[in-house]
């Protein structure tokens, strides 16, 4: 309660209220995220339950009864007879799940390595940042394709079909940690030179405690900004990887997989299979991006004008 009051009284919230773009994007993002989280309650069908599907419902136009079965779907159905609305809601869950965990993964690796590099300096710093360079050499697409290959080699056969999602998370996360590490290192170098760190050394705090208890909380603002923008990026990356055939499995499609499937119907007139997932992805990524943008400006006091 106290926290809430403080949050409402904070400058951040004040600048939030003054930015219509931020308010609208927050509303859109929250609506979409809630819709995804509560998909099982909101969606009229469960598109992940293959037994409930009737292939003959395939390619129903939005709001029009299907020629074979007579059933009608608000946003139509896709090539497998899945209700597009339900598929989008469930797909958004997968996209957000992958995005959020990938960002979390990248954040944990990036923040820890960035902090260690900044605090230890010298050789440790050089090695970590050199690894970051090598990592940057491998763009996310390549990383994902390679990890897919590797994971296939190591996962037992009966787990391979569930592997895709985790491979996505790891590969998107792996290709994303560098920017966390770089930003955290930069911020931590600034913090490290501050006197409160000296004060902590002086009273006998060990390096681990100083890194995580003192420096870490002070570098979280830029991390938050990057995390927000990375979330949008991760969702898009997942979609891109899906185009290359290393995305979420078609039986449990993410938004990206839906778009990959839908783009095949761009010329054939079944526009709804592409249009609705694409618009959802656009809204989701755009609102998260705009929020990240606003957050970046709002957390940078120097730019507060």
């Amino acid at each position, binding site marked *: 309660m106290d926290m809430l009051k403080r949050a409402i009284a904070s400058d951040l919230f004040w600048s939030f209220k003054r930015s219509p*773009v931020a308010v609208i994007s927050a509303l859109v993002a929250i609506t979409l995220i809630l819709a995804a989280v509560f998909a099982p309650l909101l969606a009229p069908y469960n598109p992940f339950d293959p037994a409930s599907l009737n292939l003959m419902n395939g390619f129903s136009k939005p709001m029009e009864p299907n020629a074979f079965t007579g059933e009608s779907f608000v946003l139509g159905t896709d090539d497998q007879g899945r209700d597009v609305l339900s598929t989008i809601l469930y797909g958004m869950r997968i996209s957000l799940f992958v995005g959020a965990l990938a960002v979390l993964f990248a954040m944990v690796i990036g923040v820890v390595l960035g902090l260690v590099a900044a605090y230890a300096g010298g050789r440790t710093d050089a090695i970590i940042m*050199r690894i970051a360079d090598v990592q940057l050499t491998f*763009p996310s697409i*390549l990383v994902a394709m390679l990890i897919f290959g590797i994971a296939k080699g190591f996962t037992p056969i009966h787990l391979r079909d569930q592997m895709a999602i985790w491979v996505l998370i790891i590969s998107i996360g792996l290709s994303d940690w560098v920017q966390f590490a770089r930003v955290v290192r930069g911020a931590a170098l600034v913090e490290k030179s501050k006197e409160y760190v000296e004060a902590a050394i002086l009273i006998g705090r060990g390096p681990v405690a100083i890194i995580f208890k003192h420096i870490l909380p002070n570098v979280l603002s830029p991390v938050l900004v990057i995390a927000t923008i990375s979330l949008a990026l991760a969702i898009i990356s997942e979609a891109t990887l899906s185009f290359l055939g290393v995305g979420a499995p078609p039986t449990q499609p993410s938004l990206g997989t839906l778009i990959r499937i839908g783009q095949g119907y761009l010329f054939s007139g079944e526009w709804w299979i592409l249009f609705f997932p694409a618009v959802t992805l656009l809204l989701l990524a*755009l609102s998260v991006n*705009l929020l990240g943008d606003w957050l970046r400006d709002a957390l940078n006091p*120097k730019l507060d004008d």
Partner: protein
Amino acid sequence: MLSYIVKRALQSVLVLLAVGLVAFSMFRFVGDPVENMLGQERTNADIERLRESLGLNDPFLVQYWDFLVGAVQGDVGVSFRQGRPALELIMERAPATLELALVSAIFAMVLGIVLGIYTAINRKGPITNFILSTSLIGVSLPTFLIGILLIYIFAVELKWLPSFGRGETVDLGWWSTGLLTWSGIKSLILPSITLGLYQMTLIMRLVRSEMSEVLRQDYIRFARARGLSERAINFRHAVKNTLIPVITVAGLQIGSIIAFAIITETVFQWPGVGLLFIDSVQFVDIPVMASYLMLISVMFVGINFLVDMLYLAIDPRLRDGKGS
């Protein structure tokens, strides 16, 4: 200065070795090339014989060693798919990718910097907000979809621009260019926009935030206090200081443009190394995959090195900070 260059070069070699190892170890798992190299009529005995002759049954380290020994001699093997030296294939396709990457990079840099400067100088206002919001659309849709939508609009519906390929190319020695023919230039437009859109948004945002930062510096206030015109302040003082950090990021971005060309090349059937790589992955053409990755790292390391040198050239503080 010289020792700095030597140091960077040594580091680069280490990076390349690491990339080679990683690349090689990963490709082992992408699939089994044997399946694609033999026709439908292959027998189990054929498979075993081919595996043996390709050295795929050797221990991993032996294979890596062979690969390294070959790589050092400039021989990364022969494409399993096309039966031609992988390096030669890569070099033959590189001009297409490099031209695409270059044009995209120029598109991204020029537009990104111009829009970035505009939105930094005019921090508020409808045009700025419009630019900022719409540019985000470019990063909020996957590249392949943007490419396909562009094809749909400009090739299929309007029939203005070609939907695939490089158009006519002209050979200048070993370099084939599409920049000298009208059809080549027309063919470049859609792919470079698709490829550059994302980087443009990034660069624009970077320029905007760097320049906003620079515009708050004391020397800008002092310049204003000396009565210099806004034009002189913005374009002579602020822009130059803004561009120094932008160079680094832009350098990294060009590196990733080359890698991201994989998607664009697939969508537009652009005959570059990215398309070659995707074909190779599907065919498990290990020598080509490895060469591609090595090429990407060489480019990346090279660009990094160039950026460092450029940095030295532009920023006087670094120039003699190292020397004296």
